[in-house]
């Protein structure tokens, strides 16, 4: 009897298939993540003339990504950790990173779906169109932006063991981002707060996405925002991975 280590590709495809099925069966949560930006996009119709179509799209997409990373990802990780699902997987001959990579791959697919949905709603409801390069770069910036919120979600799960506390903490942070985006980002709380908001994880992601939608106008501010965004990803992911415990006991 020979001991066989399965190929990483075989293991990964089995994990991915299971994670996609789980995501599909829990599609109510995903639909909610999709509804948040769609509702914002429709209700912000009046802002299009003021801040422009791309910025409106970027704002609503930002909320979708925040919802996905904070409400969806962190809660599903906390729940599975609580149920011991990760421990069961970890006793199998597969590297631990494969478990998380599969989860993140599902989230990446969700980011692409939300981005596409926003493009479709933006075109059909508000007649917002982008150049082909704009659509392409936005998929990239949405993935980078989504990574910030997934990393933040990971940090919350890393710093908090209890699933209920993860749920409460992620809701609080989500609410904070909504407030920052709605009032701070639009200048309702004054120029100083608007400037601070510009460099928060909400502001930098919103900046790179708005810039990505009109790549010809990509400027130094967008480059700086991209660098800060990458910095946020590194910091949140480092905290989230280093502090993460595979079991909640």
């Amino acid at each position, binding site marked *: 009897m020979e001991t066989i280590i399965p190929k990483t590709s075989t293991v990964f495809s089995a*994990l991915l*298939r299971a994670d996609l099925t789980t995501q599909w*069966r829990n599609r109510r949560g995903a639909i909610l993540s999709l509804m948040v930006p769609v509702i914002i996009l429709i209700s912000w119709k009046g802002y299009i003339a003021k801040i422009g179509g791309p910025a409106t799209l970027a704002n609503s997409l930002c909320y979708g990504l925040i919802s996905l990373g904070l409400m969806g990802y962190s809660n599903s990780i906390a729940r599975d950790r609580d149920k011991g699902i990760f421990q069961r997987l*970890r*006793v*199998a001959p597969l590297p631990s990173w494969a478990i998380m990579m599969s989860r993140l791959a599902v989230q990446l697919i969700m980011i692409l779906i939300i981005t596409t949905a926003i493009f479709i709603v933006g075109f059909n409801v508000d007649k917002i169109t982008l150049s082909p390069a704009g659509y392409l770069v936005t998929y990239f910036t949405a993935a980078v932006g989504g990574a910030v919120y997934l990393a933040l979600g990971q940090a919350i799960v890393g710093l908090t063991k209890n699933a209920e506390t993860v749920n409460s903490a992620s809701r609080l942070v989500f609410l904070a981002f909504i407030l920052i985006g709605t009032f701070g980002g639009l200048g309702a709380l004054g120029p100083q707060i608007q400037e601070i908001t510009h460099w928060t994880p909400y502001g930098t992601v919103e900046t790179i996405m708005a810039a990505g939608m009109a790549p010809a106008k990509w400027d130094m501010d967008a480059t700086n925002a991209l660098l800060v965004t990458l910095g946020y990803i590194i910091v949140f992911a480092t905290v989230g991975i280093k502090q993460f415990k595979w079991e909640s006991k």
Partner: protein
Amino acid sequence: MNNQQDSILKVTGLNVQYGSFTAVKDVSFDVRKGEIFGLLGPNGAGKTSTLSSIEGLVKFNAGSVVVDGFDAREKPLYARAAMGVQLQSTSFQPELKVSEILQLYAGIYGVPLTKDKLEEILKEIKLEDAASKKFGELSGGQQQRVSLVISTIHNPRLVLLDEPTTGLDPQSRRQLWERIEAIRERGHAVLLTTHSMEEAESVCDRIGIIDHGKVIIIDTPQALIEKYKNDPEVIAVSRRGKVTLEDVFIALTGRAVRA
């Protein structure tokens, strides 16, 4: 790798520490081919820490764990591939159907699973009608059966079962014992932890009693009873005149209830 060896699992001088607390102290034992070895101990004795170290879930501070010739520290993936594990709680995604869980773990262990093979497995565990049921919809006994079959889906040399019959009714428990014995008949080595002395006496070929992180004694259940049947302490705790394994266990580990 030496597939001819007698010991499928060899634990030597195992030490597990959580901060300043030593949960496992210099634990050594082996589990042989075609043997069911029971690890018994009161709550907090170090059973789960020992098992978790073997499974690779807990990093041990000293000692060695060798599974089917593979050092668990040097070749963790090979050691894990050589063992099948059933954890204390049956922990699978509740949204997945039974057939999907089997496919997932077959994929993870690199076992080709055709439709016929899947049906054969389900028939074997008497769950042929439950293939499309979600795991969360199964009864406790059905969940345990799925969990046990997954732990042996890749035909491992060593099967680790952490309190496999906890919470089962007598019928399900008996059925599970038969399945565990069938695993032994196929030449696998089985290491199980249990609080049930009846289970240890009925199923295990040898048992190790662990307390305060140390292995107190290792022997066959019958030999232990024989050895201690005239011990005044054992007779003192005996409730029905006839000395049982439980009497020996209580005499060796004390009457105090553990947290």
